[in-house]
């Protein structure tokens, strides 16, 4: 029973973090209709910012959220405005040029970080990095639990933004029907880069939250990009609620897979669920939740 509960807790805590990564990607997917294959790399840059602040100025990772999130938001704005939007206007046969551009951006970000920080493994060891508390026999990692709470807070804030503010409504309108939104007077281009900014900011937050319990090197982005799109498809493109379900589902699936099938099956289980959802529940959990 302990084993089951411990697995459940591990899966849930990890799922919370996955959800934040996924929400960022799903927003971008919903509004722009593209897969952002530089998503994990944005997270990696944010982790390096957090690391630098910690290593050179002693700033606590949670405080450095105030720096990393705006910084990556700006980076996201820039990428969308300068690199992705111009491609919309170019006449090309395939719309995938933008996706390819994100691949290129991801490579450049990785290599810039390698150029600056070399490939050395970095980590941020705070006093609370490995602290735990126990409920019964079940161990809860303190930083991961805090991360989970912050993730919930951030998601709530995002919902308020999407539902209550004009800008948020425009984002949702663009995601639902771009042409109609433009006809209604939404400046869709502005919306695209704001969305890209917010999506990047969210994953930046996830990176900063993750670094106290994880480690860092320039190639760390790739695996997270892959996880992010799995989460998005599980949740349904453009659905923030879906991404939460998607994130938690993936977290739980990986954890239970690792415990009951073997750790080598961790990734394959996520992928199989992904393919099944893609085929039998196209549109993901959005179909069920309708949000």
């Amino acid at each position, binding site marked *: 029973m*302990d*084993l089951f509960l*411990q*697995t459940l807790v*591990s*899966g849930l805590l*990890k799922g919370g973090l996955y959800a934040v990564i996924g929400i960022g990607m799903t927003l971008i997917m919903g509004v722009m209709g593209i897969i952002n294959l530089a998503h994990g790399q944005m997270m990696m840059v944010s982790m390096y910012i957090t690391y630098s602040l910690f290593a050179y100025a002693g700033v606590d990772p949670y405080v450095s959220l105030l720096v990393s999130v705006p910084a990556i938001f700006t980076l996201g704005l820039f990428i969308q405005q300068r690199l992705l939007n111009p491609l919309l206007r170019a006449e090309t046969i395939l719309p995938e040029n933008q996706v390819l551009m994100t691949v290129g951006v991801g490579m450049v970000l990785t290599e810039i970080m*390698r150029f600056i920080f*070399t*490939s*050395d*493994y970095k*980590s941020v*060891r705070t006093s609370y*990095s*490995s602290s*735990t508390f126990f409920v019964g026999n079940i*161990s809860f*990692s303190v930083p991961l639990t805090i991360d989970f709470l912050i993730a919930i807070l951030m998601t709530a804030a995002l919902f308020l933004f999407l539902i209550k503010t004009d800008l948020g409504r425009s984002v949702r309108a663009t995601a639902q029907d771009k042409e109609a939104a433009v006809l209604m007077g939404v400046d869709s281009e502005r919306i695209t880069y704001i969305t890209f900014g917010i999506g990047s900011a969210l994953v930046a937050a996830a990176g900063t939250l*993750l670094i106290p*319990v*994880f*480690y860092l*090197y320039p*190639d*760390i982005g790739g*695996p997270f990009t892959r996880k992010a799109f799995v989460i998005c498809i599980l949740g349904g493109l453009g659905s923030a609620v879906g991404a939460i379900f998607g994130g938690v589902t993936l977290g739980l699936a*990986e*954890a*239970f897979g*690792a*415990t009951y099938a*073997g*750790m*080598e099956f*961790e*990734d394959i289980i996520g992928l199989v669920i992904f393919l099944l959802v893609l085929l039998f529940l196209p549109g993901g959990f959005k179909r069920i939740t309708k949000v």
Partner: protein
Amino acid sequence: MRKTVATLSFAFALALMASSAAYAADPIKIGVVLPLTGTEANFGEIEKLSFEMALEEINAKGGVKGSPINVIFEDDSSKPDVGRSAIEKLIRQDGVALVGGGYSSSVTAAMAGVAVNNAFPLVINTGSADNITEPWTYTVSGQMAAKKKKAMSEETDAAKKEALKKEADELAAKAEQEAATIMPRYAIFRINPPASEYASGIESLLTDVIKPKTAALLHENSAFGTSSAADVEKRLTKLGVKILIKESYDKASIDFKPVLSKVKEANPDIVYMVSYVNDAALLMNQSMELRLNPKMFIGGGAGFTMPEFQKNAGKASEKVVSATLWHQTLKYPGAKEYYDKFLKKYNRDTEYHGAEAYAAMYVIADALKRAKSLSKEDIAKALSETDMMTVFGPVKFATYGKKANQNKGEAYVVQWIKGEQEIVWPKKYATTDVVFPVDWIKERQ
């Protein structure tokens, strides 16, 4: 745009000019292939710096036979296919006298194929998968024989087993013949002991001190991880230790808790892990968080001896033991000096990978010195006669068992004590006694 084109064409013209011109002085060129970018770059950098340090010393003393050595470093990007391109370039384009390097097992294996095909001398300093220095690897029958033998050992039906054995024997005989045709082209030399010998030091520690009855085995999914784990499993089974759990994982997993919870539930006497540095630190941190309390945590070299492991795992690294191949306190001439000089020069720690690279450079220089000419045959001959003392210990390429041109290194056991690595086993090299038993929960309060 136009300006860029102009600049580019200028650079190109210069390049063409240079290519047609001959060199004024002729240093002896050798090539070294290391992972300088990609996931293994961390190790590659330590090795490159060590190569450079040795190279400077050798050249300062006048090089080899009056001419300096020029090392061309190639980056294999931690990818076998790039490693292969790199060695092809070194042999064909740069015309190097020999090739050194080789960090990860898969890249090294890919490079070894090229070396054998070209009968080119290759001095490997790290790539440790066993079969790289076993000539049968380079024959089809040899590989098939190995598979058949494995199938045979897993077969329970006696009649089938007999049939498989017959097939395996036939193939092995054929492989021997084929290997004989490979041997004239086989000029691969390895300084590093093979992966299966990493744990040889641990074995006596287990029988003499820890005396475990059960074990859990966690290893990463890589050529090194898989072959080390297979070997450890064999050793443990031979000692009568029951393997309760054997699991592999992909690099860059965030969360080992599910699998560690499983380990906790099984409650083995020892937890043996083969991991690179990041995963090693995460495994120890999360074991601490879950309050695992086996008799001993044991690392299988690689990540567990890296300075970064201690930095990342902090107090969770305390009292963990690991297999290793070298330590600066060993009484080899120059070992301590190498360590101190490296620390002073680059302001960072080094460990066994660095020492291997440093020694490799000296072995190469020594062979070049003794070689009658710089032809590959003469260099290979000189290498095979190598018998010298290095910071990594005595180096002598021997043929034993299935291995050919393999340096028999020794394996040691280190323990992290108060943030420092100390040699604790074998007894005659130990700088301090092994701390055992350890109460891991109390230790980490």
